[in-house]
């Protein structure tokens, strides 16, 4: 857990990421009557992960809208609502179900601000539970963030912990740009103290050093932040000081924070569940090489999924980066 993100306030019990997101949504809905939620099973059921639990009861079915089972319909209708002055927050039930909406997201949502020469804003948030590690069936464990990051006009973010979840969902809703908001589904039940009276500690465009170190930088987002923190603790026992960066935002990518870190540590390993081929790690490796070429002690390492369809869950633990695979990449960086 991010040490910088834990509230000092002892007055509240720790909350899960799912609950923190729920509280963030609730607060955004209280503050702006134009915020509406849309999605499949988000009303009475409260969403399959209960992120919208109780919101329809309190805000009514005009603001918490159970939709037909049609993802393109959800996003397309959200565009119309946005044009009418609403701020729709759409839930895509699982990562693998976003593709029926891929057309509306990439050809419409992403482009309308530019097509109207700035006259029409599309403040839509698209929440996507993503990533594997929960033993799910096919299409329930994917990490499609690179597919969206390749499209200009979208902001792509991923929260990794309850405190960030609470604040980042509100920042996403306040954003006048469309935001793809990735939620690490296997971390939904992680807990942290949350002080709702505090101000958010970080800007929406900011990566954060969540564990300082001197010998190598680990950069990750979403579910892999905890994995990297675990790896850093294990490495410490071996006498290596790893710095961990929670990227938090993928588009824009806060290369400044990573480059500043790598200029101190001289080594970078990027970790994500998504396949490494054409992935975030490749982009970060290129940009960091560009900016830190003479400070690098080793090539930028990448740890991630493979160029295969997401495997059946019985072998997903081999596909997903874990502490050992991260430390293996760390070893290679030091051996270079």
């Amino acid at each position, binding site marked *: 857990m991010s040490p910088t993100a834990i509230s000092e306030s002892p007055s509240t019990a720790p909350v899960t990421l799912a609950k923190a997101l729920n509280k963030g949504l609730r607060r955004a809905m209280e503050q702006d009557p134009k915020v*509406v939620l849309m999605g499949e099973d988000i009303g009475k059921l409260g969403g399959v992960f209960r992120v919208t639990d109780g919101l329809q009861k309190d805000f009514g079915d*005009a*603001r918490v*809208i159970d*939709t*037909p089972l*049609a993802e*393109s*319909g959800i*996003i*397309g*209708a*959200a*565009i*119309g*609502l*946005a*044009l*009418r*002055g*609403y701020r*729709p927050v759409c839930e895509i039930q699982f990562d693998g179900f976003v593709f*029926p909406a891929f*057309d*509306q997201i990439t*050809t*419409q949502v992403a*482009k*309308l*601000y*530019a*097509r*109207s*020469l*700035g*006259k*029409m*804003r599309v403040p839509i948030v698209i929440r996507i539970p993503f990533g594997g590690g929960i033993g799910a069936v096919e299409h329930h464990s994917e990490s499609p963030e690179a597919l969206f990051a390749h499209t*200009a*006009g979208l*902001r792509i973010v991923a929260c990794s912990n309850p405190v960030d979840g609470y604040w980042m969902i509100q920042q996403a809703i306040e*954003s*006048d*740009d469309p935001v793809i908001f990735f939620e690490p589904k296997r971390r939904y039940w992680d807990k942290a103290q949350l002080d709702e009276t505090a101000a958010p500690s970080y800007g929406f*465009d900011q990566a954060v050093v969540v564990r300082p170190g001197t010998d190598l930088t680990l950069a990750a987002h979403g579910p892999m932040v905890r994995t990297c923190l675990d790896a850093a603790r294990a490495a410490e026992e071996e006498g290596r000081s790893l710095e961990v960066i929670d990227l938090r935002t993928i*588009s*824009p*990518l*806060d*290369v*400044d924070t990573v480059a500043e870190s790598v200029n101190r540590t001289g080594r970078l390993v990027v970790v994500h569940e998504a396949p490494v081929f054409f992935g975030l790690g490749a982009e970060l490796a290129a940009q960091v090489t560009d900016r830190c070429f003479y400070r690098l002690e080793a090539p930028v390492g990448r740890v991630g999924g493979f160029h295969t369809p997401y495997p059946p869950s019985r072998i997903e633990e081999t596909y997903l980066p874990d502490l050992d695979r991260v430390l293996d990449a760390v070893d290679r960086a030091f051996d270079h």
Partner: protein
Amino acid sequence: MTTRTPARSRRSAQAPAPDPVPVPEPAAADGHGAADELPLIQLLTPEGERRSHPDYPLDVDAEQARALYRDLVLVRRVDAEGTALQRQGELGLWASLLGQEAAQVGSGRAMRPGDFAFPTYREHGVAWTRGVPPINLLGMFRGVNNGGWDPNEKNFMLYTIVIGSQTLHAVGYAMGIQRDGSDDAVIAYFGDGASSQGDVNEAFVFAASYNAPVVFFCQNNQWAISEPTERQSRVPLFRRASGFGFPGIRVDGNDVFACLAVTRAALDRARTGNGPTLIEAYTYRMGAHTTSDDPTRYRGNDEVELWRARDPLARLRTYLVREGQADDAFFAEVEAEADELAAEIRAGCLALPDPHPLSMFDYAYTGPHAQVEAERKQLAAYLESFNDEEVAR
């Protein structure tokens, strides 16, 4: 090539409409089935004779009829100028509405100021009725922008090129109207080809489920580039609506009176909380799909001639003359106005400035984005380097 079964006299539409069980007709070998034989709402025959319909009464006085005629003429002229500008290399592409003027003007004039239209890329006539300056339509066809107007200024969405996408936007907008408690309504324009798209069918589902105040206005112009309507549907398109749980109506899309009356009724139905309607405006694309298309490769001239006899302008002109509602002076005046408008469009088109290359970065995001800012800076420096070289020489 293709031949079309001649339609029965349009007068047959006035007989009590037998409603045949919609058993799918096999597509005819020539690509055209019995669809042309079905009853359709008609208030003005191709011969310019006025008809009445019990469900769609329409009082049109002489002034209103002349105004509609003026619209049709001006819209056709806007379109002709677009085609001419493309042929002369001033536009990269133009999508002609020739033949569809009545469908667009009739439905467009049925809207109230607070209503909202979601067009395809061919709705130049609807744009005209909403007060969007024709020159605004040319930007994307000339390649100086990708739309460029404020949809909320005239309640006219940007043109949408991906087929059918806008029907969902229309439904979402209608859902917003419901939440505002307003009595505005929405029209979603699309074509026979779009009726096959998932988005259009999802739009039907959403609109029906939420009883949204939206009118689906399908201009069945018989051709989706080279594919006849029969390739899209085994049933007449208006009958699709019943499966979704709302009414479908086929109207003579070349009859501006009927399009006006039917659309107005559907909009009123929507704004009074009675939900969506599908209108199939049965019309014909007299020209090519776009200026890049060659329709002689897939359809015969006999079919085009058949539809020329159903021309939307000619029948209204005949009506105005027969009824003594317009004289030669009026027609001359409208022609002169059309000439003036065409000249204005031409001058405006030629005066459209190319955007500065760096402007591509301006509206990618509403605020700063690190990648965009870095690339803008790099490109600016690169472009600037050419100036330096010129100075050095």
